[in-house]
């Protein structure tokens, strides 16, 4: 099998077989990162550009490490953009990069659909590293890899995703992926941050934390951003934390072997208390480890690699 697509824009258009195939490939790459010499020549001579219009430490580093462990040459571009600042357009930036013949371009952008613009324009493979509140496919893949490793399967698991669903690309990509893999997905958050008709995505919707995480096999907490408060989506972080944080009391509602996940960066004391983030159920750092493996797998597969 090989991944017969040019780009990785979102989980929405992946089949269950493709997801399994990517996770299998990632699993086999994971071992490379534990070697003394953490480098294989697989992508020698390939050029990978990360084009980040949004601040990121974890995701960009993860992609860069993934590419380097496969011996690709990596170039990191941090650009800033806004409708107010008239600089070079995304299209012009893309055309210029294309002229230097890279093989893969990884883009993160605050505007939904930006990776799609590049994919439609360029011959190079485009990996979406997060576009607005739309999709963040590599995050969902690394989350699924983590769950599969720990639980063996996603089929039939009860998975709760809690927080600002409306503004979360992580939530959307995970909902697409986890429902395709047969999980029973519950989402939870304040009604002001619950997007219209989301139940049509095949999830059940809760407004009370206890109801959402009851008997959950996995609880995935999302980062709450303070700027949402300014738009009156919730009155205060204090009140948010009182109702939607994962803590020592409500974790007991979940199954005994619950996995606690978070895409990072975590707001300690807001959506998750420190003792839970650092506690025995937490796989937050294993998610980060798996991120490198998943990204290695994607770079390899999009470069035409076969298993």
């Amino acid at each position: 099998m090989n991944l017969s697509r040019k780009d990785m824009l979102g989980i929405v258009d992946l089949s269950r077989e493709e997801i399994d195939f990517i996770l299998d490939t990632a699993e086999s790459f994971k071992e490379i990162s534990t070697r003394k010499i953490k480098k294989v020549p697989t992508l020698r001579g390939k050029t990978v550009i990360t084009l980040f219009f949004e601040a990121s430490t974890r995701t960009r580093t993860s992609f860069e490490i993934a590419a380097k462990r496969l011996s690709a040459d990596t170039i990191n571009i941090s650009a800033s953009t806004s409708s107010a600042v008239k600089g070079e357009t995304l299209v012009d930036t893309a055309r210029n990069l294309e002229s230097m013949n890279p093989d893969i371009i990884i883009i993160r952008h605050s505007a939904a659909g930006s990776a799609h613009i590049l994919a439609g324009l360029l011959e190079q493979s485009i990996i979406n590293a997060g576009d607005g509140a739309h999709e963040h496919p590599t995050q969902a893949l690394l989350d699924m890899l983590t769950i599969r490793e720990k639980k063996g399967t996603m089929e039939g698991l009860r998975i709760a995703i809690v927080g600002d669903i409306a503004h979360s690309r992580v939530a959307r990509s995970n909902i697409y992926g986890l429902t395709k893999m047969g999980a029973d997905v519950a989402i939870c958050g304040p009604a002001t941050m619950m997007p219209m008709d989301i139940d049509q995505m095949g999830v059940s919707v809760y407004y009370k934390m206890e109801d959402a995480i009851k008997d959950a096999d996995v609880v995935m907490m999302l980062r709450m951003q303070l700027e949402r408060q300014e738009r009156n989506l919730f009155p205060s972080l204090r009140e948010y934390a009182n109702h939607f944080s994962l803590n020592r009391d409500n974790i007991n509602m979940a199954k005994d072997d619950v996995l606690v996940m978070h895409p990072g960066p975590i707001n300690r004391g807001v959506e998750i208390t420190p003792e839970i983030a650092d506690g025995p159920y937490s796989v937050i750092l294993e998610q980060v480890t798996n991120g490198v493996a998943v990204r290695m797998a994607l770079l390899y597969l999009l470069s035409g690699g076969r298993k």
Partner: protein
Amino acid sequence: MKLLLKSGRVIDPSQDIDMVMDILIEDGKISRMEKDIPISETTPEDNLQIFDLKDTIVTPGLIDMHTHLREPGFEYKETVQTGSEAAVAGGFTSIACMANTDPVNDNRSVTEFIHMQARLTAMANVYPIAAVSKGQDGKVLAEFGDLKDAGAVAFSDDGNPVTDSGLMRHALEYACSFDMPMISHCEDTGLSSGGLMNEGFISTQLGLPGIPGIAEDVMVIRDIKLAGFTKTSVHIAHVSTAGSVQAVREARSAGINVTAETAPHYFTLTDATLRGFSTNFKMYPPLRGSGDVEAIKEGLQDGTIDAIASDHAPHSSVEKDVEFEYAANGIVGLETSLPLSLKLVHDGILTINQLIEKMSVNPANILKIPKGSLKTGSDADITVIDMNKMWTVDTDKFRSKGRNCPFNGWKLKGKAVMTIVGGDVKYADSEI
């Protein structure tokens, strides 16, 4: 020079005419309209030009009561000249242009400038719509009296809603005292702000902030209440929601003076077309759901919606070839409006007579301009339509400077094949 239009099916709802007739045009006016005007009744000195219009429909010139011509200020997007060229190519003999130019058309000099540009360069009649408030910033009323004297035909802050209900009340009262129409862009910015597309399942999937349909509905209801209270009239621009249609329908039956227009894209496209993130589907109001599309068609059919207007909004690639979030709202429409609307006739939703009412007679009445009729003695503004001509939309062939059109490549049935403005043939399809 005289023009003789022979054997077309003449449809003039203003006179209840629908029959095959000949029309004679003299000195830019319609001089005779009879079953058969023999050529023998003219003399060689008449320098007669004869058009055989068999199998076509001959109507009062179409009127697009909602366009953006971008001049002054944004001449790289469109000018009075290029916009009017697009108009006649699309079958429109008269167009009204919105005030959101730079400077805003909120004073006599801008209105006069648009009239001057029209006189010097335009292919069609151009009717400026002036701003409600100075600078369109919703604070201070513009000088309605002076603007009317300068030749403005209506007032609208289109592009920006008048959010202050007190100001809107006074604008309605003040415009009414000058016998001038008020056109309202209905948008509750508290509900719409930050939104990029219709709020619903598609916006949830795409992760784009939504603009709920009620952002339009509540302002339509507000304006209806204000018009009822002040005993004035209001025209609702670009209706896009089922809620607005219902509100206008109820107000009408309660005796309130409200009229409404919609644009072809609101009965042709849904928000599902946003899935590819193409900025040519980004506009305000946004494309809505299929329930809204059906409601718009019903509103057109039962007469709740009086007019079809294009909301022609040309932009250059500078505004459109960018991330979806940053792209400007709006699409061009002058050259596709009639053919998209003809589909309503082909689908049996409207009769051709009703369509002509909505694209000529009613806009003339709402704007109170002496157009929309083929009465003897009136200006010879005439559109000739071939209902069945198959053609393909090709934005590269547009007369408009704008290429921001979601219908590029669409195969459409029917179009204007000849447009006569003041007795002059301003556009003729190659086959005529």
